[in-house]
């Protein structure tokens, strides 16, 4: 079905269901409970980030996972997509269709240029070239060098680009919503389902991004299984051999780079469509690094890994960073005071502003013990259960490595 084999189809359906049911699945604890206040992640702004960064890392994985070329400047395309979308809001109207189209196109065009230059080198030199380009773009956006050259505002520097009441918005008619919308469906509009101690929020913007992510995921499966995908893998395993057989690998590489850049542009456009403001920090090198970490954490070269990695990092960033000492004291309130204080002192460096430390430890653990990322962890657990059922099935079911 859908041109997928049964294994991929199963995975695709699981992803689709998980994504669509996320507002419920991510709110496992009642809202008012202590656990719910700290660990529930089912609010629209965070779920949007889950799926949008999912799109970004799926795209990144098409390049890094298949060809092995590590782009260290992918955040630049995200930023360019965001700026393009906000400019469409400023010039045309709050309808997100032109904004998202333009963000994909502009990111695609820029990635053709950057890819053409950077792909002349491989390995570490490629990474450094992409990093250099991204930092150049960041500097241009941060100081609004383009704008200064022409005496206008292009990126609005550190303050960030946003939509003002006196912007042209030539396609805007009187009754239109003044927030991003899809032909009248506002992105921040939502329905709430109150049941028991829970209230689940179903937001239009989230579902739009979710549909985009499911489509992006589908496209990525098709690319993985296509002859084009096979060619990219061949480049990864031995590019020199490909050259000797008389094959020009350059167009394939460039195509992969541009597709990957367009994915990032789409993610940037969606970020702006959810929240019509963008700033240069989205393009900073740490943002690019975060994409690489997400990808490695989830499992490079696997289909589902990038989505998991993106989700985990965004979860830590938004949830663990919110836990403070007061909340810890609440949790441990039933313990004797000395134990309570001791535990809080031990946990203190890992929560709140220390969430980076938690992420770092987690990253080290994954890289050391699960080189294949979270996906490998899942596979190991899966094998553990399968082996219990029948010992011979485990051996028989293994496939060749490549």
């Amino acid at each position, binding site marked *: 079905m859908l041109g997928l084999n049964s294994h991929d189809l199963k995975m695709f359906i699981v992803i689709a269901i998980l994504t669509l049911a996320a507002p419920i699945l991510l709110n496992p604890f009642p809202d008012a409970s202590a656990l719910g*206040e700290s660990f*529930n992640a089912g*609010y*629209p*702004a*965070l779920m949007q*980030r889950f799926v949008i960064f999912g799109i970004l890392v799926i795209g990144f994985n098409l390049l890094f996972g298949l060809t092995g070329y590590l782009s260290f400047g992918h955040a630049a395309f995200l930023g360019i997509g965001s700026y393009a979308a906000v400019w469409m809001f400023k010039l045309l109207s709050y309808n997100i269709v032109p904004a998202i189209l333009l963000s994909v196109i502009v990111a695609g065009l820029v990635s053709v240029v950057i890819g053409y230059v950077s792909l002349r080198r491989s390995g570490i030199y490629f990474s450094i070239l992409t990093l250099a380009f991204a930092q150049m773009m960041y500097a241009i956006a*941060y*100081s609004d060098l383009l704008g200064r050259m022409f005496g206008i505002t292009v990126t609005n*520097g*550190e*303050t*960030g680009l*946003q939509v*003002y*009441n*006196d912007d042209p918005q030539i396609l805007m008619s009187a009754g239109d919503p003044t*927030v991003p919308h899809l032909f009248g469906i506002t992105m*921040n509009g*939502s*329905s*709430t*389902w*109150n*049941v028991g101690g829970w209230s689940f*929020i179903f937001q239009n913007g989230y579902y739009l991004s979710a549909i985009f992510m499911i489509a992006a995921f589908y496209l990525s499966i098709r690319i993985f299984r296509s002859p084009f995908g096979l060619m990219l893998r061949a480049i990864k395993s031995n590019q020199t051999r490909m050259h000797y057989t008389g094959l020009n690998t350059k167009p394939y590489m460039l195509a992969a780079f541009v597709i990957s850049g367009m994915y990032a542009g789409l993610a940037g456009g969606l970020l702006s469509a959810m*929240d019509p*403001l963008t*700033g240069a*920090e*989205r393009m900073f090198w740490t943002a690019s690094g975060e994409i690489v970490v997400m990808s490695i954490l989830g499992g490079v070269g696997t289909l589902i890994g990038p989505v998991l990695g993106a989700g985990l990092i965004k979860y830590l960033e*938004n949830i663990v*960073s*919110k836990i*403070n000492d007061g909340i810890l004291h609440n949790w441990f309130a039933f313990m004797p005071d000395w134990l309570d204080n001791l535990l809080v002192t031990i946990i203190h460096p890992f929560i*709140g*502003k220390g969430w980076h430390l938690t992420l770092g430890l987690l990253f080290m653990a994954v890289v050391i013990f699960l080189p294949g990322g979270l996906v490998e962890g899942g596979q190991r657990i899966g094998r553990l259960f399968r082996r219990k059922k029948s010992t011979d099935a485990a051996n028989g079911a293994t496939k060749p490595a490549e």
Partner: protein
Amino acid sequence: MTKSNFTRRGLLKTSAVAGAGLAVPTIFTASSASAFTNEPTGDTVTFGFNVPQTGAYAEEGLDELRAQELALEHLNGMGDGGMLNTFSSKVLDGTGIMGKRVNMKTGDTQTKSDVARASAQSMIQKDGCIMINGGSSSGVAIAVQGLCQEAGVIFMAGLTHSNDTTGKDRKANGFRHFFNGYMSGAALGPVLEKAYGTERNAYHLTADYTWGWTQQESIQAVTEAMGWTTTQNVLTPVGAGDFSSYIAPILNSGADTLILNHYGGDMVNSLTQAVQFGLKDKQVNGKDFKIIVPLYSELMAKGAGSNIEGVYGSMNWNWQLGDEGTAAFVKSFGEKYGFPPSGAAHTCYVQTLLYADAVTRAGSFNPCAVVEALEDFEFDGMGNGPTLYRGSDHQCFKDVLVMEGVASPSGNAAMVGYDTLSIVEQTPRAQVEYPEDHPMFAGGSLGECNPGA
């Protein structure tokens, strides 16, 4: 041929499904059921304190957080009540707000617009915050103010000194108690003229974002009006760390005055390096070289140590002021934390109380009612003397302080930064006022207040 299998189980199943199906429209209540975003329904109400806890402005952010916690204590009737006793409006009685106990959620803005907005969104969507307060950077303040306008909650800005916050980026749901670049210029001008005369060449180093730009513009306008010339204005990235490459060229530029439009850790670094380069002991055109830091804070003074001696600057408020509101706040802050509050802490404390007071006077948490209660509100007893929240741009107007760095009179190392700034002049409010369509503030409009939902 049809065959029907009516079983009791089947009937139950079918009716359960049908019932659930019919019930769906009733349980999917659109969020527009409540009158405004995050209408508090229980016996508590939640404020969101969104401050930088990491990054270049973290010190200010953490001090803001201390003051906000203190404000909640006073609102909920704990502690000595602080400024509630001196505040000219007497509707707050220490039983929370309209009988609701006040809770808080904190977030880390990291002084990044994206992160600050994500944090504010989580406060609004997940934690049900009715008001967002805090912040230590104008870029972030403007970004979060825009978000609060869209979401339909009130933004009580913390430390933001850019003209744009209540100028071209002003929003109906946003309010600023802190002063701004224009006011710094207006207050500093006469003092500088008296101290340094009318013939000087100023060299500006400016933080490259909205605050730096507008403060530089304001100071340049004031100094040029009294006869100074501007040699050069160099923009420096925020959080640069090392400013030596920007300071070296000053030595040969012919300038005799350096104006540092830097804040927080950046100002500490640039001022320290300027002193290390020997700028303070230099003579240019027969005049002593002078350094000016238009926006001062206690935490910057603390970081810069003795380097600030003889350096002029301005402040929104200082703990050494003699009025009884200041005394009450300094006392309760000092008793809780063991040191005096900074200006950033003061502005966040006052903003929290002003919001609570406006809600109580309006009798509603509805943002539009709060906006109405705050607009053109005259109050006193919060430091700085009689203060006006102007309705046309949501900017507070009050006295501004001109400060000078001095050697610590107490010699107490713990007091460096707090007693190494001395008040030179309390510039009266009339001198720093401006029309809301002043060219430096033009191009913005408040728009309509947005209750959300």
